[in-house]
């Protein structure tokens, strides 16, 4: 079992006038066997949260409950959790075998033979049996990473805690290890809490992601929930790469139909869209994902003429950077799209694909409809 309940977790660093609230009233339940990703920008409190769960930091307030037992004040060794660190934290004076055996030696009464058997078994599974008698400095980054993972796995803990474990690897190895980690987690079914600031890891690895900012939980949900139905502007901007385009707009109800007015365009609202914003103030943020920006067709409404700044053809998609008003925005088109820098293109933001956020609080008022078959209808060039 490995169910974790985090109840009002708060961690404040410093004393006197220089207090920093690293984690603010975090509530979260992590099911047994779940793979939860903690994601957010640097300094958002994700690592501190993980360290509180591990017992490496003492929370200022709140509770951490593991399988019904309050472990808030327990030492790390009493929590039966294993952790993988960003820099691997392998003991330089020990061989890979000794590194992997160390936790078992310290926490169990197993005989040396039994410990050795378990280490060898885990090493075989991880494909590192030939490295067991080498010291960390003799291993490559990827091999060190495997030993660090093996050190966690061999303990057979209730919870795996991973603090950006792939961030020191090169891009190719990171991709490979990402899938390996997922397979391992699925194979063992051990509750895993994984900290990252990497978009791709967040979107692809976990059952759910918890998005943190400024120590506060912004949203917790499946990766696609957070992508398609962000709770607020922060989540909308943070999840997805390239990130969502945001336009600060003002509601204008003086015409026949209400519209959202931006410095460079006016976006006429249908009755359905108007119902989400009318009566909720005048300042809003219109959000459009790059892949939802379409090249306009003759019959389209809300067409906007923009200037092309740069195009980045990646083969499968092309990112086009468009000048709208004083800012640059991103559009993503399927396939190769050849647009000369400086040329003018007409684009549109389909009504069923736009997000609307409260201009003051950033709270989502309307999210785009989930992807459907009509996504195929996007204009291909």
């Amino acid at each position: 079992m490995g169910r974790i309940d985090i109840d009002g977790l708060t961690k404040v660093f410093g004393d006197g006038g220089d207090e920093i609230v690293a984690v603010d009233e975090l509530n979260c339940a992590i099911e047994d066997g779940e793979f939860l990703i903690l994601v957010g920008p640097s300094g958002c409190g994700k690592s501190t949260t993980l360290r509180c769960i591990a017992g490496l930091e003492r929370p200022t307030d709140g509770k951490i409950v593991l399988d019904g037992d309050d472990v808030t004040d327990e030492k790390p060794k009493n929590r039966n959790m294993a952790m993988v660190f960003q820099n691997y934290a392998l003991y330089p004076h020990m061989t890979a075998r000794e590194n992997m055996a160390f936790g078992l030696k310290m926490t169990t009464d197993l005989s040396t033979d039994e410990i050795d058997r378990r280490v060898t078994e885990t090493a075989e599974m991880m494909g590192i049996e030939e490295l067991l008698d080498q010291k960390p400095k003799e291993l490559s980054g990827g091999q060190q990473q495997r030993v660090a993972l093996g050190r966690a796995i061999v303990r057979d803990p209730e919870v795996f805690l991973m603090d950006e474990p792939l961030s020191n690897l090169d891009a190719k190895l990171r991709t490979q290890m990402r899938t390996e980690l997922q397979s391992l987690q699925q194979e063992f079914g051990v509750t895993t809490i994984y900290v990252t600031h990497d978009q791709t890891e967040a979107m692809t690895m976990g059952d759910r992601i918890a998005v943190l900012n400024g120590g506060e939980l912004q949203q917790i949900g499946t990766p696609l929930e957070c992508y398609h139905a962000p709770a607020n502007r922060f989540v909308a901007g943070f999840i997805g790469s390239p990130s969502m385009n945001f336009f600060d707009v003002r509601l204008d109800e003086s015409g026949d139909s209400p519209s959202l007015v931006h410095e460079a365009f006016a976006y006429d609202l249908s009755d359905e869209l108007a119902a989400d914003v009318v009566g909720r103030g005048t300042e809003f943020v219109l959000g459009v994902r790059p892949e939802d920006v379409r090249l306009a067709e003759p019959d389209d409404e809300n067409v906007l003429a923009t200037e092309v700044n740069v195009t980045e053809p990646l083969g499968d998609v092309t990112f086009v950077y468009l000048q709208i008003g004083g800012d640059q925005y991103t559009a993503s088109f399927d396939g190769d799209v050849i647009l000369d820098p400086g040329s003018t293109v007409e684009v549109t933001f389909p009504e069923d694909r736009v997000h609307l956020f409260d201009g003051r609080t950033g709270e989502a008022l309307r999210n785009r409809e989930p992807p459907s078959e009509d996504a195929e209808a996007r204009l291909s060039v």
Partner: protein
Amino acid sequence: MATRDVGGRGLLGRFDDWLDEETSPRRALAVYGVLAVYFGFLLLPIAWLILSTLMSTEVMYSGRVVPAADELTLRNYAHVLARPEFRRYFVNSTVVATATTALTLVFGTLAGYALSRFEFPGRSVLLLGYISTQMLPWVLVLIPFFLLMFELGLVDSFTGIVLAHTAFALPFATWMLKGYFDDIPESLDDAAKMDGCSQVDVLWRVILPLSAPGMAVAGFYTFVLSWNDYLAVSVLSQTAATRTLPFGLQLFQTQNQINWGLVLTAAVITMVPVILLFAVVQRWLVEGLANGGMKGT
């Protein structure tokens, strides 16, 4: 790397091949020349000192710089080592320096680790306090120290001398070890805690094995400081029972006469343990002085 034909190139050619590609033989010879002068300047007095201990008084005063081989003798060593006081001072020095080193390393390690890893009220003041003690000349605190030891009844005891030496060595050793611990990533402490270690286990099983070079430097510094000290022992020691080797040199001089052969021999015997210790720990010593905790590991 390309191989070169060295056949028939003579001594200079072979020397050139031995050097790396960027260094010319002329430059290398100049560097070796300067180094030879430097080390000659440094080592010649010591070589002469050792040579002098192998001469009888007559040969020493004969005016010849290098004596004939059959004139060399170990009589001075036999004479010095035959003196029971000298042997006693040697044992005393060993006891005092070893105890001082052990005490300094134990407290220096604990203090250095605490200062490196924990935030606690007064930490900065303590760090400044440690370093400020190094600004005072030893002789300045000697009398207050004597009075303190007198009050504690520790004058003319090994305990008093060991405490005095420890008091002088501890601040430097603590600072040195703290710097060394600072270079060891804290994630290793965290990993060890996750692996079931208590705070003491972390220090004992992970930090200390990684700190061998730092410990070697701190230990060597302390041992040499204690071994060579004359000033504190001269004040705190009242009888032959607690005197140390630097006093041994006095045994071979009277008010009107100095037996240079015996004094130099006593000096050489005094140097030997330090040189031996250096030989044993020099690998860690060089690493410890050159690198931080994790570099080169």
